[in-house]
């Protein structure tokens, strides 16, 4: 199962500041959608609205419509905690919990919510999630070591394992490889392509080669100037965006003639 996400007339605010203006797009299930654009254009802000992490920041809120499989996730009767259980997220910097072992990190989505499970279920789930994140072979002999004892690339895959262990419908990745070396990046990219079999994957990236390598759809955002809101300029199939963009701004950006 994975979800179809529809954004219509979505405006995202930090207090009185309009950060992202009037977004209309449909994110298809079982695909990878990449958000590209210059720094400060609102890509990360927008991806954080998809699992209601945006409102964790004091004063931040959203106007407009955002539905997942037709259900409005910003309706007043919706608990943001329930949304986040369906929409997993991987952050820019690997952030395993430092007080927990590798195994506890993978199971943290259950353990932190006080869900009890038998030891055999826990072992099976940890193995399944770590295999899903292509990390099992590297850590199977040291599951009781601290999560922070792994390398940066392994830590990031541990964070992906932690996110997929709770079996969400959607995986959001906010620049997941920007702090990693090329080999770890390749591992995460392969993993993202495997993940789209089961999940809807949305990825924010600064790396245009990465977007063209792995994504099915690409959205290009930009801002006219600092202080002005970010806008969606073009949203199309990835090969169209990179080989035959309709907008001049997109063409300038993907060909490196930006600004």
């Amino acid at each position, binding site marked *: 199962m994975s979800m179809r996400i529809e954004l219509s007339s979505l405006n995202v605010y930090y207090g009185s500041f309009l950060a992202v203006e009037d977004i209309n797009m449909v994110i298809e299930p079982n695909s990878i959608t990449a958000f590209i654009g210059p720094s400060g254009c609102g890509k990360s802000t927008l991806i954080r609205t998809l*699992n209601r*992490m945006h409102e*964790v920041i*004091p004063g931040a809120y959203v106007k407009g419509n955002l539905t997942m499989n037709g259900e409005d996730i910003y309706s007043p009767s919706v608990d943001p*905690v*329930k*949304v*986040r*259980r*369906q929409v*997993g*997220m991987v*952050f820019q*910097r690997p*952030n*395993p*919990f*430092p*007080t927990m072992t590798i195994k506890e990190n993978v199971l*943290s*989505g259950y*353990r*932190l*919510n*006080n869900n009890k499970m038998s030891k055999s279920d826990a072992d099976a789930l940890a193995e399944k999630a770590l295999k899903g994140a292509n990390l099992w072979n590297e850590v199977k002999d040291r599951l009781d070591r*601290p999560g*922070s*004892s792994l390398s940066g690339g392994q830590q990031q895959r541990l*964070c992906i394992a*932690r*996110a997929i262990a*709770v079996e969400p419908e959607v995986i959001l990745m906010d620049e997941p490889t920007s702090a990693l070396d090329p080999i770890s990046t390749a591992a995460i990219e392969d993993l993202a392509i495997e993940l789209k079999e089961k999940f809807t994957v949305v990825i924010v990236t600064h790396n245009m080669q990465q977007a063209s390598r792995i994504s099915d759809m690409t959205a290009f955002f930009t801002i006219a100037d600092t202080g002005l809101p970010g806008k969606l300029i073009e949203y199309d199939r990835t090969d169209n965006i990179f080989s035959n963009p309709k907008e001049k701004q997109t063409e300038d950006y993907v060909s490196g003639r930006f600004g």
Partner: protein
Amino acid sequence: MTTASVTQNFQGSRSLPKWLAPTLLAVAILASFSINSALASSNPEATQLNLFAVALVAVITYSIGFYLASRIIEGQRKSADRLVTILVTGAFALAVVPLISLAWTVVERGAARFDIDFFTFSMRNVVGAGGGAYHAIIGTLEITGLATLISVPIGIMTAIYLVEYGRGALARAVTFFVDVMTGIPSIVAGLFAYAAFVVIFGPGVRMGVGGAIALSVLMIPVVIRATEEMLKIVPNELREASYALGVPKWLTVTKVVLPTALAGIATGVMIAIARIIGETAPLLIIAGFTASTNFNPFDERMMTLPVFVYTSYANQGSDAQTYIDRAWTGALVLMLIVMILNIIARLVSKYFSPKG
């Protein structure tokens, strides 16, 4: 590149010969010794050589000589470095000398009565020699323990409110009053507890628990401040990682933030205990003093170690020396308790801090 073309760009800086420092030191000590001897012999009131003066003059002579030698041989940049090193080391030594002197004096004078009797006898019916501080040790442990039980939950929860939940006017007001509370004189805390208990139990009330409440007034702001600092350094990414897994805020605080900060909080609590365990004035008012052992903090007077030290010294009996000896040993025991607490805090932070 051939060896012939090697330039001398990095050569030419001379440094002090190795023998210079010890030689200078020996000369400085000798010079200081002879100057002080000469002064002492010319002064009929001086009965013996003042060793402190000898050391002081020797250190100053050595520092000046060393700086000048470095200035002449090594040049300005290196000599400035050496001068600052000497000043910083000197300031450190100046800070440590009183500390070592104090610790040594307490150990030396406290050793006289540091025996089994001191830990097993109270002062009931003791006049002159003998007796001990059993009643005071019990009182200090009970009152400090109660104060910790009151202060730690209030302090930690207030800090959690300030860091994780507090926004706007209320949080600012709490922060302001915590700052004010940090500056409350201990005697005022004692009077506050006394006044509160007089309202309930009538005038002349004396209770161990009153002392615990007075000490909590002093301890709570210290615990809040320490916990607040520790919670603030927990990276925000960990909170976000937890929220993104669909963990509610209260579980994020109790199961992610607090365990990550636990080692620092434990150290802060120990420092707060060390801060209040030596308080005398508030306990003198509300816990009073007694020669008998009292296990019940909710009834009648209770002795504590700081008050024991104070009364032993203030109300010396016929055999004054025995009272003074007991006072020093009381101070030594208090110091040892604080030291043990510090060692426990070290162990806690070693075993509970995040590994990686």
